[in-house]
C-alpha cells in the first residue's frame, strides 16, 4: 500500500474551506497526545493554548498587537512570492523602516507638531522600500540572486541599528545605555480603543489586507503579478516588464515591512532599541504561505500564529510547559496546515503497490 496523489480537475472549493479545520483537528489530536505524554492534562493544555487567549479583552488586544506586524508584512510578501520575487529580507526592511521613521523624534526632538506622526509613517515606508530596492536593483541590473542579497542585508540592518542606538542616537539622559531617547507625544502612534493596547498598526494591517485583496483580484496589476509568477514568458509577450514587476514587488513589500517597523517602534515600544523586532520579518514568511499568499488568508494565518505565541506564554505560566514545547507544537501546527492544503488541489488515495514487473519497468 502507498499514498498516491491525484490532481483534481479544479481547485476544490469545499476543501479550501475545510482544510484549515481538518488541520486544526489533527493538531488538537496530536497535541493532546504530546501533552498527555508530557504528563499534562490535554484538555486543559489545549484550552490554554487556543481558547484562553480569546477569553479576555486584554488578551484580544495583545493578539492584535502581536498579529498586526505579521499580517502587514505577510500581505506584502504575498505579492512578492506571487510574482516569483523571493524577498526573504523583510526583517531588514522592517528595521530600516524603523530607523528612518525614527529620525524625526530622535534627531529633531524639538520639532513637535501633529504632522510628525504622518511624516514618520511615510518615512518609515520610504526607508523600508528603499532598503527593499537594493536587492531589486541588484537582481534587475546584475542578475544577482535576491534570496542571498535580501538575507544578507538583514544582518547589516540589524548591526546598523545596533550601532546607532549605542553610538550617535543614544539617549543623552539615558546613562549611556543602548537605547534612543523616548519619543515625544506627537511621535507616538495612538491606541485605537480605550480598552487596550491595540494601536493604529492594526488598522494599517487591515487596510493593507483589503487594499491588496482588491488589487490582486480586481485589477490589471493583480493579473500582471500572477502572470509574472506563473507564466513569465507569456507576461513578456503581453508587454509586461519583468524588471518593473521586481521593483514593484520589492518596493511594496519593503514599504509595508517598513511601516510595520515604524508602527511597532512608535506604537508599542516608543523608542528605538538595539533589537527592533523579535523576528517578525521571518515569521511573516510562514504567515504569507500559511495564508496561501491570499491577503484574507494571511489575515487569518497571522491571527492563528499570534494566538499560538500568546497561548505558549500562558502555557508556560499555567502549565509549566517549556517554551521549547511551544515551538515544537507550533511547528506541528504549521505542518498540518500545510499538509491539509494538499487536499485542495489533490485527492489522496491509498493504492496497492504495483507488481514487481511494473517496478522494474520504472
Amino acid at each position, binding site marked *: 500500500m502507498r499514498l498516491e496523489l491525484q490532481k483534481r480537475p479544479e481547485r476544490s472549493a469545499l476543501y479550501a474551506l475545510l482544510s484549515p479545520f481538518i488541520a486544526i483537528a489533527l493538531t488538537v489530536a496530536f497535541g493532546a497526545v504530546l501533552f498527555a505524554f508530557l504528563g499534562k492534562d490535554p484538555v486543559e493544555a489545549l484550552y490554554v493554548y487556543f481558547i484562553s487567549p480569546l477569553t479576555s479583552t486584554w488578551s484580544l488586544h495583545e493578539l492584535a498587537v502581536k498579529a498586526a506586524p505579521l499580517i502587514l508584512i505577510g500581505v506584502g510578501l504575498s505579492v512578492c512570492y506571487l510574482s516569483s520575487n523571493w524577498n526573504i529580507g523583510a526583517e531588514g526592511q522592517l528595521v530600516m523602516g524603523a530607523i528612518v521613521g525614527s529620525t524625526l523624534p530622535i534627531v529633531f526632538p524639538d520639532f513637535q507638531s501633529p504632522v510628525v506622526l504622518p511624516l514618520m509613517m511615510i518615512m518609515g515606508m520610504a526607508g523600508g522600500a528603499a532598503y527593499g530596492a537594493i536587492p531589486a536593483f541588484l537582481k534587475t541590473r546584475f542578475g544577482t540572486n535576491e534570496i542571498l542579497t535580501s538575507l544578507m542585508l538583514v544582518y547589516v540592518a540589524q548591526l546598523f541599528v545596533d550601532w546607532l542606538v549605542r553610538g550617535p542616537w543614544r539617549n543623552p539622559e539615558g546613562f549611556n545605555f543602548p537605547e534612543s531617547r523616548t519619543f515625544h507625544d506627537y511621535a507616538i502612534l495612538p491606541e485605537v480603543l480605550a480598552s487596550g493596547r491595540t494601536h493604529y498598526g492594526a488598522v494599517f494591517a487591515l487596510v493593507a489586507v483589503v487594499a491588496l485583496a482588491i488589487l490582486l483580484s480586481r485589477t490589471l496589476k493583480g493579473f500582471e503579478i500572477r502572470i509574472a509568477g506563473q507564466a513569465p514568458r507569456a507576461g513578456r509577450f503581453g508587454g509586461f516588464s519583468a524588471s518593473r514587476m521586481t521593483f514593484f514587488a520589492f518596493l511594496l513589500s519593503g514599504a509595508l515591512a517598513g511601516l510595520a517597523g515604524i508602527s511597532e517602534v512608535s506604537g508599542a515600544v516608543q523608542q528605538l532599541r538595539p533589537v527592533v523586532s523579535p*523576528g517578525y520579518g521571518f515569521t511573516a514568511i510562514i504567515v504569507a504561505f500559511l495564508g496561501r499568499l491570499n491577503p484574507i488568508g494571511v489575515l487569518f494565518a497571522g491571527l492563528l500564529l499570534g494566538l499560538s505565541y500568546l497561548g505558549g506564554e500562558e502555557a508556560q505560566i499555567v502549565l509549566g510547559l517549556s517554551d521549547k514545547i511551544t515551538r515544537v507544537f507550533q511547528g506541528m501546527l504549521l505542518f498540518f496546515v500545510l499538509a491539509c492544503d494538499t487536499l485542495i488541489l489533490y485527492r489522496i488515495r491509498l493504492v496497492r503497490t504495483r507488481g514487481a514487473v511494473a517496478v522494474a519497468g520504472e
Partner: protein
Amino acid sequence: MKSRIMGLALAAVFASVSGAQAADKLKACFVYVGSKTDGGWTQAHDIGRLEVEQALGDKVETQYVENIPEGADAERAIERFARSGCGIVFTTSFGFMDPTIKIAKKYPDVKFEHATGYKTAENVTSYNSRFYEGRYIIGQIAAKMSKTGVAGYIASFPIPEVVQGINAFLLGAQSVNPDFKLKVVWVNSWFDAGKEADAAKALIDQGVDILTQHTDSTAPMQLAAERGIHAFGQASDMIAAGPNTQLTAIVDTWGAYYIKRIEAVLDGTWQTQSSWDGLKDGILTMAAYTNMPDDVKAMAEATEAKIKSGELHPFAGPITKQDGTEWLKAGEVADDGTLLGMNFYVQGVDDKLPQ
C-alpha cells in the same frame, strides 16, 4: 451533546485555573529574556528563583516565562503577570525597564523589581550587582599570572556595565603591574559559543596568555584549556569546563537578593529603592581560587576582604582616562552616577569605544 461535554470540561478547567490564583500565598513572578537553561545569565536568575522556593517554602509560589524578547512582547509578559495576581514581579533584563515602569503605573498594588536599569517608581525598585568588584580581583590575579603582560577580554556589547568591567579589570591589573595591557574583542552577542571561541582564538593567537570574558558561554574557557592558558569564569562557576584552567569565576548569586526582597514583601516592609549590591551582600561571589600559587591566592583573598569591608574601592583615584585627562584625583572615589553611565576607558585599554 459532544459540545456540551466539551463546554463543561472547559468550565472545569477555567475554575481550576482561577482557583489556583486564589490560594493564599505570595506569588513571585520572573520574566526571563533568555532560556532558563542557557547556562548563563538567565540560568543564574532561575537558580535564584529556585533558592527562593527552597528558603521560603510554602509562603511563596514562583512562576516564570522564558525567552521573552525585549519590545512589545516584554510589556505583554509583564502585564500578564501583574494582572494574574503576582505580588512581586522581577524583570531580569535591561530592555525590560520601560515596559516595567509603564505596567507598574497601571498596577499600583503590585511590586516590581527591574534588574540592571536605572529607573524607579513608587512600586518599582531597580537592582543590580557590582560585578566590577569581582573584575578588579581577577585583574590583579591576571597581572600576577600572565607572563606576556597582555590579557584578552571577550566583550559582549559596549554598555556601561561592560565598560565598568573592562576598566575595573585593568585597574586591578595595573595595581600589580603598571604596564599591563588589555586587548578587547567585541562579539556583539551575549551568547554565541562559536563566535566566543573564535574571539578567544584570535586573542590567543595575538599573544595574550590569559583570558576573561563578559559573555556567557563556556566556549572561551574550553578553548583556553585546549591552548593551555588560564581564564576566568563568568556568571557561573565554569570549573567543569576547565578544571586546570579556571583561576576563579565571578558568580552571579541572585538568590540572596531575591529572598531578601520577597521576605520584605511578606513582612510588609518592602520599599522602593535603587539597590546596587556587591560582594559584601552576597549578590555576587567569587568561585574558589584555584590553579594559582599560594601568594597569588592570598593576594586575591585579601583584596576580596578589603572590598567587602569597604577599605578598597576599585574606582579610587588617582585614575587617568584613556585620553590622558584626569578623572579622579588621589583620595577621590567614583560616584555611582558616573559608574552607572560609564562610557570611557581608563588609560591603558587598547580599544576605542563607539561614541
